[in-house]
């Protein structure tokens, strides 16, 4: 028997329009890696030979070693700093809590520039020592030590933020239970607090490892031959791009594998605070005579990661002005950056909307696959995405090759996850019951979207757009490879000046980049504060 109900519509499952939009976005995001794989497969035996070369293994080893070293040293800084600023009576801990996250504003290549220009050959330190002591050489900072130091100083705040969030979210009763069972403060930290922090450490550590493996600017300035630098040198110096492609594939698959493995591990061990979370303040550990040394340690971290680079850059700026080096304010580069970053932000926000709606309101297999595909941008290093688009542009989209739209597309692929993350949070906070109550009051779905959902999600959209905008302003490798001829941004200005060892000229874009980065960091810190 056929049942017919007037005005009834089929229910269940997401609207077709959203599914199609999400599928288009996801396909576009997955395009670079797919194309790279196809190219490598087409190259056949030649590519395989390169992948299984001893040299490739060496590059892999160097890259992994750097990632491991940076992640461990970042943890060695972030864990004590997080604990000291949240759980102890360290003097000035409120100020230090903010100050220790501020180094986020220093992009890794700016840190590298500061280190090289301060400690490298013909750097500040050597010049100072030459006068009175006749020192004409210092141990070279280039290579592994420089890259390690620069990346550690720029990335430890990522771990700090995630560990601190976990410390705040922990049920204070956990530590109280441990103390009541006879464990002292140290044993409690080791056996109750640390296991609770493990997921946060894994997530933050993964972020730093990915950042290190994908970072181009710092390793290039330090002339450390990790994957990204070798790939870049190959692209610049050789017409045959098979080597660059093959190496990109290895790096891309590796970072992608790392992300997938972490996701799997997290799925199995999901233990968060059960219940209402922290309602009363957690126990405060009294440091007694270690109070001041602890504060000094935190202050030293801020000084090395933020104070040092800013001071060095200001020194070079003053030197340049004193010696009449031609220093111009890079208006053109700033405008270029605003133009491409603005469109990238707009594109990323629009593209993330169907993904977020699907993931939050219609969770399931389809949503998981679509969302997973957009995360390739998070896992793939900028240079790998850029390289694949170079090929794609040359072979299939010649009119678009080395144009601004192509560059904007690359940015969208790279930074879509940033937008998805921000918008997703704000939609998650919006209870479906609010939308349902609007429906029950007679609003049609579109009306609900316009009158209820959009105004409530708006702040999240703005945060997402701002984060993508600021991140794009700093982007280096994709910009170098894909920008139209003569198209300059602050990042490429800095790159050109430091390649010419003209530190005074590099100082202006570097300082401006730090300034630009303060906005997303302010947003992040503000969010952290509200999360408490």
């Amino acid at each position, binding site marked *: 028997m056929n049942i017919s109900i007037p005005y009834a519509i089929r229910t269940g499952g997401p609207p077709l329009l959203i599914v199609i939009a999400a599928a288009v976005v996801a396909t576009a995001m997955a395009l670079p890696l797919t194309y790279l794989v196809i190219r490598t497969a087409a190259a056949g035996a030649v590519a395989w030979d390169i992948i299984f070369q001893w040299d490739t293994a060496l590059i892999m080893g160097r890259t992994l070693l750097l990632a491991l070293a940076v992640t461990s040293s970042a943890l060695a800084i972030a864990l004590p700093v997080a604990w000291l600023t949240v759980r102890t009576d360290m003097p000035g801990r409120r100020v230090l809590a903010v100050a220790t996250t501020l180094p986020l504003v220093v992009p890794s290549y700016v840190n590298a520039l500061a280190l090289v220009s301060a400690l490298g050959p013909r750097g500040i330190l050597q010049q100072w020592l030459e006068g009175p002591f006749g020192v004409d050489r210092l141990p070279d900072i280039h290579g592994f030590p420089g890259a390690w130091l620069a990346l550690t100083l720029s990335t430890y705040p990522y771990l700090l933020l995630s560990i601190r969030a976990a410390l705040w979210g922990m*049920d204070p*009763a*956990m530590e*109280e*239970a*441990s*103390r*009541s*069972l*006879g*464990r*002292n*403060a140290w*044993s*409690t930290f080791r*056996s*109750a607090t640390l*296991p*609770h922090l*493990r997921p946060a450490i894994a997530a933050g550590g993964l972020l730093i490892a990915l950042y290190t493996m994908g970072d181009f600017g710092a390793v290039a300035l330090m002339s450390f031959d990790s994957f990204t630098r070798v790939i870049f040198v190959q692209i610049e110096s050789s017409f045959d791009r098979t080597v660059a492609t093959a190496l990109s594939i290895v790096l891309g698959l590796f970072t992608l594998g790392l992300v997938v493995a972490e996701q799997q591990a997290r799925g199995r061990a999901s*233990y968060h605070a*059960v*219940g*209402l979370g922290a309602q009363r303040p957690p*126990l405060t550990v009294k440091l007694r005579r270690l109070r001041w040394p602890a504060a000094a340690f935190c202050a030293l971290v801020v000084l090395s990661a933020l104070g040092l680079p800013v001071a060095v850059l200001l020194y070079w700026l003053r030197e340049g002005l004193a010696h009449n080096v031609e220093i111009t304010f890079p208006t053109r580069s700033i405008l270029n950056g605003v133009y491409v970053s603005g469109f990238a932000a707009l594109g990323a926000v629009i593209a993330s909307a169907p993904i977020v709606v699907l993931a939050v309101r219609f969770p399931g297999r389809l949503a998981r696959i679509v969302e997973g595909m957009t995360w390739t941008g998070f896992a793939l290093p900028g240079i790998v995405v850029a390289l694949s688009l170079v090929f794609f542009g040359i072979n299939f989209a010649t009119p678009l090759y080395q144009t601004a739209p192509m560059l904007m597309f690359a940015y969208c692929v790279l930074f879509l996850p940033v937008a998805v993350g921000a918008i997703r949070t704000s939609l998650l906070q919006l209870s479906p019951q609010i939308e349902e109550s609007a429906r029950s009051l007679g609003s049609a779905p579109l009306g609900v979207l316009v009158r209820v959902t959009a105004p409530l999600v708006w702040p999240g959209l703005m945060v997402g757009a701002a984060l993508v905008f600021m991140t794009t302003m700093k982007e280096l490798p994709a910009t170098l490879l894909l920008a139209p001829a003569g198209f300059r941004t602050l990042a490429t200005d800095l790159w050109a000046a430091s390649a010419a060892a003209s530190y005074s000229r590099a100082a202006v874009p570097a300082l401006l980049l730090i300034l630009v980065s303060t906005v997303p960091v302010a947003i992040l810190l503000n969010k952290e504060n509200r999360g408490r």
Partner: protein
Amino acid sequence: MRQATEHGPILSVEGLTKRFRGGTLPAVSGLSLTMGAGETLALMGPSGSGKTTTLRLIAGFETPYEGKVSIAGRIVAVPGLSVPTEQRGLGMMFQQFALFPHLTVEQNVAYGLAGLPREEKARRVEEELRVVGMDDFKKRYPRQLSGGQQQRVALARALAPRPVVMLMDEPFGSLDARMRTEMRRDVKAVLRQTNTTTILVTHDKDEAFTLADRVLVMKDGVMQQLDTPDNIYHRPANRFVAEFAGMADFVAARFEDGAVSTEVGLFSYQGPRPDGPFDLLLRPDTVEVTSYPNGDCAITGREFKGAINLYSVRLPSGKTIWSAMPSQQVHRVGERVKVRAKPNSIVLFPR
């Protein structure tokens, strides 16, 4: 009621006062109590009454502003000096149980037994889990257990190190009503069996009455009464305790020929006479109604509670009081009745 044994009190608190920075009134003010071995004491009061702060002072998570705390004859806290929690020999149970999510049931229970040799530890874990009936769940993780099961594990974990005093902070607050009743009964049995001295914080009078040998009622940081559950209910020290401990009515009373006279009856009374006008405390379960067509009282409402019928009755003066009658005794609203009160003890409060 067990009082201090010849070994002295297990726990003693003297003139305990706690002020928080920025607070104008002390959170706890001049609190004193002593507890004997095996005794269970309930700290009862509305939220903000200082009961949890008192517990945390005893636990050592807060330090006193004035007064002192002794456990098993040893002073553990005076202003400015405090023995760390882990050295006080306590067991604690929390509202959300606070089981370590990264450890199995077995490892959770073993957590407080760090110093013991391996076989001894295994034996103790086995023993404690058997006491709470969780020995079949040793290898499970907390997230694989129901609320009641998690609570049993939390109890076993707290008992395993053989604490001198057990502290419980609203331990049944996150369980549903049926599970709560069952767990109360079981926890009480285990505490009896292990002869554990226990302090329980609760805002629920049923919980306090079921579990405790004595109940300490607090309001605004000040102790209102410390007595057996029966006395807290039938002989409350003031109106606040009377109302917090159950449904209460206060009817106008006066002295007449050496007895207390009210509109629900005349009661003989030997105690001290309050100055000025006063009221008599009535509990619904001591007020009886019977059908009486010519009576001057009337039923104004009925709440069916299952085991009992709770009636509101209008007295001749216009005052309405409660009466609890068996479930079979049904009166309709508006029916004329006769009211008789049979209070356990005559409790008078100045008006």
